[in-house]
């Protein structure tokens, strides 16, 4: 009897909790509830994400619950297999989309978003990135322009160095600097479980400049092998700098042991220990957080990687976080509709560190001359490609990352490393 009564009390308590949960939101006539989001952000980037969704939360009464991880592929997979996927996830690698869409983990967005309206706001390249078999599954909300050579104009003036317009000139300059004992490049490949990705951007950028988007596409889809000439040459071009103790600050051990976020800092020590750093637009915010005295445009500037083959000089390498829906709830739908809007994206853009693929975000929303210039380049690029590492199947990407680390440590083993990658490819592209 006593046990029965206790059980009854538990049920009543649970029912009351349920009622309370439903009550407070319906009273205000708002959507209410929560929407869980999985992404890679932490620190200032997370603050910006929270600022971006704040108006959404105020308007709908729905609470956005964010979980951040650097190891997104693994965490997402665990949660999907555990039957507990996040409502929405922001993936940095569109290469994972096909598998997720085909296993029905990812929900199609054709009926969630107004695609005709989106087509007016987004360049078609950007919408295509989120499509699988023609159907929209994910949308880029935050973008970055990659393959930029960052430098301190003051240092270059002091060192009497002018920026060469070609990569060959850049290499000659690198040698000249090495001759007088200065390493030209700052480089760091560390990034936890995804260590090596900055090297994949280097290699892809060198390939884009030398062999163009068609070769990039063929490589990413494994229509050409890892031992194909354009691919191997891009690796060798990368290794010529990264594995050369005189060309990178600290030599290969420092390249392997330095986190990508710390890598550009030696450019700004007194005296500077290196002059150039190849990285995406987001590095500006990281540098400014470390050195508050830096004035964008005066102490910090960038140029797109100098040309190799003239016809591919303007090709842009891009990155972005694609938002997809893994759990179809009214809150998730509402959040997706909000995130693709220019209104939402302008918030992050104004805070710095992000570019928007949405044409509705005006250029004057960008906080400084550098981000405005990057946004301009992004819009004007004759062709743009996502970094190769982000577009390959996750298994291939992971092997690519690891391969670059092996290469910097053992530059003489390129042939064996590419053969191992080819073996992984046979498996990953099934």
């Amino acid at each position, binding site marked *: 009897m006593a046990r029965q009564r206790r059980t009854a009390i538990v049920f009543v308590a*649970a029912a009351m*909790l349920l009622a309370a949960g439903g009550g407070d939101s319906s009273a205000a006539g708002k959507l209410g509830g929560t929407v869980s989001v999985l992404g890679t952000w932490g620190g200032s980037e997370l603050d910006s994400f929270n600022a971006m969704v704040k108006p959404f939360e105020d308007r709908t009464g729905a609470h956005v619950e964010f979980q951040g991880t650097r190891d997104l592929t*693994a965490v997402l997979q665990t949660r999907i297999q555990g039957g507990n996927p996040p409502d929405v996830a922001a993936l940095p690698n569109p290469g994972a989309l096909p598998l997720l869409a085909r296993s029905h983990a990812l929900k199609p967005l054709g009926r969630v978003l107004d695609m005709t309206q989106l087509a007016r706001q987004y360049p078609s390249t950007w919408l295509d990135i989120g499509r699988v078999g023609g159907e929209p599954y994910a949308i880029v909300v935050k973008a970055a322009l990659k393959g930029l050579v960052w430098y301190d104009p003051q240092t270059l003036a002091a060192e009497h160095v002018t920026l060469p317009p070609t990569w060959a000139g850049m290499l000659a300059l690198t040698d000249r600097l090495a001759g007088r004992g200065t390493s030209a490049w700052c480089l760091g490949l560390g990034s936890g479980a995804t260590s090596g990705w900055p090297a994949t951007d280097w290699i892809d950028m060198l390939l884009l400049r030398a062999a163009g988007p068609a070769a990039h596409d063929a490589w990413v889809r494994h229509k050409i092998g890892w031992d194909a000439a354009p691919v191997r040459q891009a690796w060798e071009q990368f290794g010529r700098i990264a594995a050369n103790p005189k060309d990178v600050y600290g030599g290969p051990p420092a390249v392997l*042991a330095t986190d990508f976020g710390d890598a550009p800092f030696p450019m700004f020590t007194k005296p500077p220990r290196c002059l150039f750093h190849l990285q995406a637009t987001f590095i500006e915010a990281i540098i400014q957080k470390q050195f508050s005295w830096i004035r964008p445009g005066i102490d910090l500037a960038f140029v797109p990687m100098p040309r190799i083959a003239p016809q591919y000089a303007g090709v842009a390498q891009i990155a972005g976080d694609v938002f997809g829906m893994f759990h179809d709830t009214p809150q998730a739908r509402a959040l997706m509709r909000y995130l693709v809007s220019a209104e939402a994206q302008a918030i992050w853009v104004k805070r710095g560190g992000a570019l928007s693929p949405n044409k509705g975000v005006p250029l004057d929303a960008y906080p400084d001359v550098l981000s405005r210039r990057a946004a301009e380049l992004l819009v004007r690029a004759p062709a743009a490609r996502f970094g190769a590492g982000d577009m390959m199947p996750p298994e291939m990407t*992971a092997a690519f990352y690891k391969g670059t680390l092996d290469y910097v*440590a053992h530059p003489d083993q390129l042939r064996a490393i590419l053969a191992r990658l080819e073996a992984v490819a046979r498996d990953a592209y099934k």
Partner: protein
Amino acid sequence: MGTLLLAAIALAGAPAASVVYIVAAELALGRLAVRPRRALRPWVWLAPALAFVAVFLVYPTLDTVVLSVRDATGAAWIGLANYAFALGSRDALIALRNTVIWLVLFTGLVVGGGLGIAALAERVRYDAAVRGIVFLPMALSFTAAGVIWKFVYEFRPAGAPQIGLLNAVLGAAVPGFEPRAWLVGPPWNTLLLIAAGVWTWVGFATVVFAAALKAVPAEIAEAARVDGAGEWRVFRQITLPLLGPTTGAVATAMVITALKVFDVVYVMTSGNFDTDVLATRMYHALFVDQHLGRAAALAVILLAATVPVMAVNLRRLRREAAAR
């Protein structure tokens, strides 16, 4: 809300169900004659536990073995290809080699270190403080320990201020020392990962050995000393044999810890630079490559590796029980 309701039901329901089961079973047993009742009763009481073990331990193990001969999605039989992957490539051999290094060095250093610290601490008045300090890292997760030790091994190129403790100390102590990137090159990196692991676990061994040492009768050692045995001889020929069962238990626990080591490696190097172990490879196969078969094959290999350890242990336990 649904989860809360479910939790409430589970919380109230599970004990209620077991009480109902026992009452009903006892009622049923009461109707039987004395002899079958005696024979059945232990099984009735064991059945729930056996069911749990079967569902949560035996079935997953068998399922893993079955998966290990199937393809990435578990759909088709592909023979021993997953085992060829798990044992046959360069990466596989490196992971196997590292796991063996962990097994030997980690176990040896934790058991040896724990025993040594416990035996020495016993001889001083502030032994509780010593044990407390050595035990402290046990309060940390392996992950936190990994993060801390990553800072200790941090590297900056020569000429820049060293923020890593190891490079800073060596730089100050050894003239002309060039800072090294400890974690990016074998064989140092695996050894230094093991050092971080030992730091975390040696306190556990120390505490267990200290307790066992307290149980060693002082008279035996005293008698040996009267007979002219030196301290080292007393330790080797009296204390150590008496600690045999404890050493066995600690060593077993550490062997299993070493076999399944994951967190330290994942946090500090992610298995890069030839520091992979079996568990990090299994994680990679499961969550990055999403290959159920390969992950299962690696799990089966890990399981197979623990079987001899458990067998030795069981035999020892049985022998001790018989001796008593």
